[in-house]
């Protein structure tokens, strides 16, 4: 169950990452998804090293197979990240857009 307090507390983290750019370090495509993510499968998840050195994990949006290579440039965007649970809170988080 999503907690509104936890959502509020984590907002800063999301805001700090938005618009940052970086390059893909490693990648996979998730075909068997955990609870809440099944509707999106299959979806790629990539480990990205941002230009400031921070490493972040997230899904790729608007993707094609050619984007799933090491070194692919991406930008951090905000998206709904999984299907809302019975708390009704829409869970937003970060994903990556290929450049």
């Amino acid at each position, binding site marked *: 169950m999503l907690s509104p307090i936890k959502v509020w507390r984590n907002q800063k983290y999301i805001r700090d990452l938005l618009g940052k750019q970086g390059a893909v370090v490693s990648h*996979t495509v998730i075909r068997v998804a*955990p*609870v809440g993510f099944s509707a999106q499968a299959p979806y790629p*998840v990539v480990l990205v090293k941002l230009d400031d050195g921070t490493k972040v*994990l997230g*899904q790729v949006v608007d993707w094609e197979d050619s984007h799933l290579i090491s070194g692919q440039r991406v930008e951090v965007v905000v998206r709904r990240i999984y299907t809302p649970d019975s708390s009704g809170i829409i869970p937003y988080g970060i994903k990556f857009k290929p450049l």
Partner: protein
Amino acid sequence: MQIGILGGSVSQFGELWQVSPRFLARDIVGQAIADSGLALDAIEAIYVGNMLSGMLGGQENLGAFFAAELGLRCPAFKIEGACASGGLAVHTAINGIRGGMYKTALVIGIEKMTDYGSDEVAAALMGAGSDEERKSGITFAGLYALIAQQHREKYGTTEQQMAAVAVKNHFHASLNPKAHFQSPLTIEKVMRSALVADPLKLFDCSPVSDGVAAVVLADESMSKKRAKPVWVAASAVATDTLSLTARHDLTTLQAASDAARVAYKQAGVTPNDIAVAEVHDCFTIAEIVAMEDLGFYEKGKAASGIERFETMLGKRKPFDSAQGRPVVNPSGGLKGCGHPVGATGVKQIVEIMQQLRGQSGKRQVPDARIGLTHNVGGSGAVAVVHILRS
């Protein structure tokens, strides 16, 4: 003080829908105690290795739960460290005896997983990862896929080489009546199986299993009364970042190589002395990385060695320390024997104990005198290495 392993037992691993955890544990603990030659009331402490009883089963307080089930009122604890829970429970029990608190200890590793849907199990297992990892929608197969992808780019590791790990471990499992999988696999069958998290396919992944394992440990004076004691030569634990993201190098699990280095020093042995090893092959790539982290192969060389089946029973020559390759995962490993997460680390100890006693039947490694176990939690956040000797 030396710590001895007096007895142990492992249940059937697999989809055990007809039996509850409490009955399964009672049965296997009874066998382990009988094997130890001790009376049940000689047990002075109980350590339970388990990860998911709370998240999946809604049952916490497992120490008291199993003590009561056995009719004991001794100190009892649940030890949790994701898929390393079992190994950590063994380590903690050893410390309890070594510290002089208890003369004997019972360790139970247990997990009941097949009562739940695969999406529920996938989400619960992600409890071993970080919040950031969970929000990305990645699974454990996905985390190890990121490792596999890097290993492939850096060392040229191929999908066929990963498949060879599954083929070897299924062959071993076919010799182990307790194993989840009883039939051998071929490279082609692994390669044709459905993708789970690219490049990992269904047969690159260990299964979701139910199972229990138990061991009885005792201090030096009690252990010396046994005819064939197996001794704990080393027990070492190391930790690393919870999140894979924070690691400098994805192709090694630093916690595993740190724990191994400490364990080899404690035991006064080198990787060349190990005749048999049970390692944490939750995914095929994990065994390749483990071979390198444990020093059995140089970095980047394990995959081709495994593809030549150098670590398979029957392929390896009678033990020769100059050759320096152990038989790896004679039980079938997590891949073939199954992976009830909390039970795995304890099962590894029972397998090596039986190998060192010469009780492993068709899968007996000839002349096994020193064996090693390698149990990993999360994507390398915690690792436990034990070295046992006869």
